[in-house]
């Protein structure tokens, strides 16, 4: 295993030291592994918190700041944080108008956030609502699975709903918007390589030089199927087609071409060119886009495509000022 780390079991704690050093505009609670705004938003505004296992950076800590999250809870690599952390983050973030928990749909994340909400209800009078993102079309959403994974749409949701919260919308309205965004988004991912979980010390799966995994999530789990490696134009097809087959994507949309951590930006732009061509052919009018590493899977080489159908309201909220280390504009 080749990584820029010290003790493989201490990666999160060590990385948070760097986050604290790099970002005076953020506070890092090392004990609770929480990142939150040094300057909280105004009293009376709804707060947003999210959290998840480490290894997806910049998600979520990189999206804490004006216009997006108020706090982020960090679990160990690929391991959901714990209810006490979430409860702490909820208290830190609340400005009297309640807190929205943004949860990616994984059994662990969902159960831990559930327990956190139970704690909040029993131990405090903070109003907590939850949105669970589940946009990954690689997973059949059926009683035969834990449901679709929450992936790329989580990034776009944190931006859009964060803007609505800054506007002063109430918890019910913010929650309703969050659900609307989640329902309007779909994602599909692929991997050229596995990632290596530091504590595991070796790649999560073996894969041949001439193979790739289609339908991967963001935890190094194998995808839905393994196929021969193909040119970018063909890979784009294998990502775009399942999305267009899953919902009617015609009309204006925000599109993200996301890198999984190990693929350089030049490849991501090349993929975006291929993906945009296919989406436009499919009737998608790309109104806004993001190309880069936003929700990653450690050092995995590969990418994912997210298509979020966006009406004027969503576009307006998308364009609103945001000031985080991961996304910044209009500020």
């Amino acid at each position, binding site marked *: 295993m080749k990584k820029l780390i010290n003790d493989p079991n201490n990666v999160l704690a060590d990385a948070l030291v760097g986050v604290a050093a790099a970002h005076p505009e953020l506070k890092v609670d090392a004990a609770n592994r929480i990142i939150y705004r040094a300057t909280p938003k105004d009293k009376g505004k709804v707060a947003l918190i999210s959290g998840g296992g480490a290894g997806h950076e910049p998600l979520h800590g990189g999206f804490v700041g004006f216009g997006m999250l108020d706090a982020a809870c960090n679990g160990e690599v690929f391991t959901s944080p714990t209810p006490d952390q979430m409860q702490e983050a909820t208290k830190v973030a609340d400005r009297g108008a309640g807190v929205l928990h943004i949860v990616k749909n994984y059994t662990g994340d969902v159960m831990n956030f559930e327990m956190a909400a139970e704690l909040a209800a029993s131990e405090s009078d903070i109003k907590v609502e939850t949105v669970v993102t589940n946009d990954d079309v690689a997973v059949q959403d059926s009683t035969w699975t834990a449901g679709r994974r929450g992936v790329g749409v989580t990034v776009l949701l944190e931006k859009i709903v964060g803007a609505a919260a800054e506007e002063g919308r109430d918890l019910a309205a913010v929650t309703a918007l969050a659900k609307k965004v989640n329902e309007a988004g779909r994602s599909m991912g692929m991997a050229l390589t596995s990632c290596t979980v530091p*504590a595991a010390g070796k790649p999560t799966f073996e894969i041949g030089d001439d193979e790739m995994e289609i339908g991967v999530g963001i935890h190094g789990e*194998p995808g839905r199927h393994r196929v021969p490696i193909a040119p970018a134009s063909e890979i784009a097809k294998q990502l775009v087609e399942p999305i267009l087959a899953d919902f009617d994507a015609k009309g204006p949309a925000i599109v993200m071409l996301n890198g999984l951590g190990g693929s350089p930006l030049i490849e991501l732009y090349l993929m975006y060119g291929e993906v945009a061509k296919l989406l436009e052919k499919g009737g998608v009018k790309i109104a806004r886009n993001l190309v880069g590493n936003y929700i990653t899977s450690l050092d995995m080489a590969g990418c994912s495509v997210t298509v979020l159908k966006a009406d004027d309201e969503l576009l307006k909220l998308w364009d609103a000022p945001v000031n985080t280390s991961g996304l910044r504009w209009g500020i």
Partner: protein
Amino acid sequence: MSDGTISLERLTAWLGRFAELVTDQRAYLTELDSAIGDADHGANMARGMTAVMEKIGAGTPAGAADELFKSVGMTLVTSVGGASGPLYGTFFLRMGMTAGAVPSFDGGSLGTALRAGLEGVVARGKAEAGDKTMFDAMAPALDAYDAAISGGGTVQDAAAAAFAAAEAGRDATAPLVARKGRASYLGERSAGHLDPGATSTALLFQALSETLSGTTTPTGG
């Protein structure tokens, strides 16, 4: 018949042995989780049970079973995360809630507490038989345990039967297609691998059986 009293010390020894087993088999549990999950189950269980042993080793030992298991459950919930944290955490929390402030268990009350733990796991995770989860090792283990006790067996017999049933249940997860947890994302590709959580659950009952068989059970007229 044996009175089969199970003291707090013995229960603590059970937890200690479980901590040993998950730490020894950490790499193996992670290996299993690599095949159909995200390669962290070994790290999660080792981290959690290490925290547990630090917690109950520190300060004054628990005075009663409810206190002991509630603190075990809380420690797991706050130190593990992932799916196994809330699930094993709830398992022990419910054991504690059911136990009451008793200084020890006997075969019956231990069985009742374990059953409550299983119900907690189901309440939290909604797993059913055959979903390819820890449930598939835990449920048969408790059925075997209860059968042994109600058949007049000793706690040692019951624990041994539970261990055997847990291993059988663990092995039976191999051919299953997962319907809960991360492994369910793999669909058919999840078949042919043991479930990591069922494997750590088998270790829980291995620890119980080994620890209790260490008890000398006086027989009386």
